[in-house]
């Protein structure tokens, strides 16, 4: 079910990401203000944007699950949030490295987007513990869906609040360039963003397919073991176990 298009997506990811990195180092000009350090921007910002979109997508799948009761939406939601969390860690670490290189500190409170992102990350880090703490699969799925919708709605609200809080006292530190972005930079950024987005979808489908395969195998084992009575039920898990 999930594997359709996986091969072409993975090829597209390779092309786009390698292409993007090539553009970053061979094509995009050095920033006037920040110099070479600015190259981190092409990694950090796409990671952050795709992670946030992934979180919101998790909420959308949550809505779908609650509306239709189809467990595959719960699985889609879980995997989307799971992968976005990994990307979010990447965005935070690269953001921190960028802050250290530009500003000398590993963390800056002045940059509202970075701070908002940290808050969103802290929130979504609770997703798996929450799921794990509920044993009944149906209730686990429903509670997780409610959480994903709440957290998804929280993302824009949070960015608004933090921006309001910080922007009036501190100027933006980690902006892409001093003024507007020249054409070469914009192209590189867009390719990078596209590559990150396609990579996300690839990894998402990859994990969905893998999970579905192991679910099917487990169901097979159960059917076959009925006669032998050797089947051992799966232990507690944060991930959806059945479709």
């Amino acid at each position, binding site marked *: 079910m999930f594997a359709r298009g996986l091969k072409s997506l993975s090829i597209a990811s390779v092309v786009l990401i390698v292409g993007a990195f090539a553009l970053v180092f061979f094509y995009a000009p050095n920033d006037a203000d920040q110099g070479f350090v600015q190259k981190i921007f092409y990694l950090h910002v796409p*990671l952050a944007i795709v992670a946030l979109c992934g979180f919101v997508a998790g909420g959308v799948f949550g809505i779908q699950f609650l509306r239709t009761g189809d467990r595959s939406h719960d699985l889609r939601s879980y995997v989307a949030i799971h992968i976005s969390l990994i990307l979010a860690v990447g965005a935070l670490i690269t953001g921190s490295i960028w802050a250290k290189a530009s500003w000398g500190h590993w963390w800056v409170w002045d940059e509202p987007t970075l701070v908002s992102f940290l808050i969103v990350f802290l929130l979504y880090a609770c997703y798996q513990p929450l799921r794990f703490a509920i044993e009944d699969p149906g209730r686990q799925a429903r509670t997780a869906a409610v959480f994903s919708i709440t957290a998804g709605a929280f993302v824009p609200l949070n960015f608004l609040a933090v921006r309001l809080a910080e922007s009036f006292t501190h100027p933006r530190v980690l902006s892409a360039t001093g003024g507007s972005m020249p054409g070469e930079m914009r192209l590189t950024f867009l390719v990078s963003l596209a590559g990150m987005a396609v990579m996300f979808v690839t990894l998402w489908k990859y994990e969905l397919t893998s999970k579905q395969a192991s679910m099917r195998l487990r169901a097979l084992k159960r059917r076959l073991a009925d006669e032998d009575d050797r089947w051992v039920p799966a232990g507690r898990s944060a991930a959806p176990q059945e479709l």
Partner: protein
Amino acid sequence: MPALPLDDAGPYVAAAYLVFLALILIYVAIMASKLVRIARDLDEVAELIERRDETRSGAADESAEQPVPR
């Protein structure tokens, strides 16, 4: 904000891109271990089917061949 000269800036940029690479490869490693488990489960299923076929053919000679679940 003074621009760092290339010597100083290089390690930071490299570190950032390496973090990205590390995350991707760690993910690949986790997926690989899941694939290993799938392969092992597949072996178990194949073995269970073999055993069932043997008991079936042993128990009743004329029993129709059950279609193997796909």
